[in-house]
């Protein structure tokens, strides 16, 4: 698969490999690991519970991971969500911003599952 194809899946593969000291193997290994990462589940639960703090912490963490894995579409969406949850937080606004996050998460994780051996 070429970079362009990865990009359509929401992943900047080239950037990711670069980050992982040029090792495609290492990068893709971590992509696969991401599928087991519990952070999204934490975010989901916090949003459901309306817990601004918890949602913020989870969102922030997930954002970091997404960024490090160059899941840039998911990352950008999380940036906005996390911003809304910062400080006092605006749960209403966050709720509005959340569905795209959910969608993208589903999408990119499926893409990874399909693309990475």
């Amino acid at each position: 698969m070429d970079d362009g194809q990865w990009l359509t899946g929401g992943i900047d593969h080239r950037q990711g490999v670069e980050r992982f000291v040029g090792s495609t193997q290492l990068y893709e290994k971590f992509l696969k690991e991401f599928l087991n990462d519990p952070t999204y589940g934490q975010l989901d639960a916090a949003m459901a519970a309306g817990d601004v703090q918890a949602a913020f912490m989870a969102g922030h963490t997930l954002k970091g991971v997404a960024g490090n894995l160059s899941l840039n579409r998911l990352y950008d969406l999380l940036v906005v969500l996390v911003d809304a949850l910062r400080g006092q937080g605006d749960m209403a606004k966050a709720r509005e911003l959340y569905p795209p996050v959910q969608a993208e998460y589903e999408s990119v994780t499926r893409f990874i599952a399909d693309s990475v051996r």
Partner: protein
Amino acid sequence: MESERQTVLIVEDQPFNRAILRNILGGEYEVDEASNGVEAFDVLARDGKVAAILLDIVMPIMDGYTFLQKLKDSPYASLPVIAVTGEKDEESEQKALNLGAWDFVSKPYQTNVLLLRLKNVIIRSQFYLLTEMQRAYEFDSLTGLYNRTKFFAETQRLLRAHTEVRFCMVHFDIDHFHLLNTFWGEEEGNRFLRFIADEIRAIGDASEPCSYARINADTFCICLPYDAAAIKKHVETVVAHLTDYNRNYLIEPSFGVYIITDPAERIEAMFEHATLAAKECKGKYMTFMCYYKPEMDEKLAQEQVIINQMQQALDQEQFVVYLQPKFNLRTEKPYGAEALIRWQHPTKGLLSPGMFIPIFERNGFIGQIDYYMWEKTCQLLRRWIDQGRQPAPISVNVSRVNMYNPNLISMLVGLVKKYDIDPALLNLELTESAYMDNPEIMGKTVTALHEAGFIVMMDDFGSGYSSLNTLKDIPINVLKIDMKFLSGQTDEARKECIMAAVVHMAGWLDIPVIMEGVETAQQVAFLRSIGCGYVQGYYYARPMPVDDYERLVDGLRQLPAESRSDNHQALVQTIWAGDPQVELLFNSILQPAAIIGFENDSYQTIRVNARYNELFGYGEVVSDVTAQLDRHIAAEDVQQLKTTFRDAAARHGMGHCQYHLVDEDGRHSTIDMRLRYWGANETTKVFFALFEQIKDERQAA
């Protein structure tokens, strides 16, 4: 060979991120991990090889900022930290840097940037460490000045960079610093050293280009452009500051200056020259600075040779006794001698004491030398007695070291017993400067020596600082005065006056005087005239080998100078001891009276009573009666007066005459004087005189 991999500590709570970082860094570094600040400190305690820390700023338990703060106060404060901040989080970046982070990287990780920054920060930290260590290796921790190594290197650079300038090396230290340090204690001693460092710095600041350092203890060194006047000024300034520093102590510096003529010379050698020059100042009164002369090195080398050879020389009896006879000035015949040391060196020939005695005095070897000389002299005396001669006493020197030796008496008594000779034959010459250290002990020692039967001479009388006190407190038998102490620019009259006075004083104390260093007939004549009894000097005889001495005195009867004192003790008692009855009598006589001394055809009043002062005016008690203050004895009467004295002296009887006093206006008064001979000491005939004014033209007017 690969260099060892360094270790980086990752402090990150997210396992995922930790894993990423571990993998990113693992290619180049060994990786330690901690999920929070507390764990991080544990790791640091365990692993001493951590070279850098990668720190996530946002963490639970102990957040990044807290960790940074705690790190600053920990033993790991010098470790470099890279803070990992959220993206576009300038606030965090600032805060992290303020708390001591060396750099920051943001998430998502930019691997190449991260690796570069890590490498940079590690190199910077190593450099910093190196600088710290170097600082310790180059600088003196107490004063902050360069240390010895750094100084020599810097000085080398200085000389190379300024080939057109003539530099000099100045060694500075404080005399007897170890003593001051003992008195003051370490803290105060250190404070003083810092004070000195400031003085040195001040000189340095005023003397660019230059370098300076603390070499060790109280030794400092400055290399600065040579300017004699400027150096002198600096020395004076430092001396003044030291005087003010602590007025309870005598703090004296020694500056040794070595002018650098060959910049290619070893720096250490330059410093050694300066040090040698500084040594020259020590022990010299009011001398704080000395310039190096090449002779000093020579001198040092020679000294070392002598020290290496001295013990063997003693064992092999290379030291020999030379004798310089003393002469009875009145009979002009020898009476005894002084034993003087010479070194019959196997290769250097006959060495005079000036070449080795000072060295032996410095290192204490003089003690053994003394004893050797005493024993040799005793052996001589014994041999002469056995040969049927009747030897006159020989005097030997007792060095300062032995004068304070508690075994001195037993050593000497042991020797005279061993050779079975009368202690009075082995005269002891003690030097005056030794008395100054502890007059009390000296007094006891001299008394003990008397009791053991020895005669004690004070050598070099007048050369020290406490002559009067010494004479007062210590019961010596004979004074030896060196004519040379009176040499120099002093005018002759002054010298002669002092010598005469000293001989007089000795006369009253009934102490014979031996004048040393007498070289001319003129000196001899003068000495005879003031009543000196003995003379030792080149005029009569040089120090000579024992054989020559034996030939000189062979068959001679050696006699001491006869005492010319007559009624001396009674005189002393009466005139000087202030017997109250005598005082009363003398002062209540209704007539003017005086005690007059007559010698060498001139007279001096020794004491007068109140009526005398009323008649003739007040003046010094001891004044030449030829000038009875504002009136002079008429010229034509002077001879007559002298004749009266002379005749009375010859007859040990009475004299009577009249003479005229003339005042400045030419008016006469007539004085009637009656004399009575009273006694004599070594130098002077003493008379008692009564006066009466018969006619006074002044009243008529």
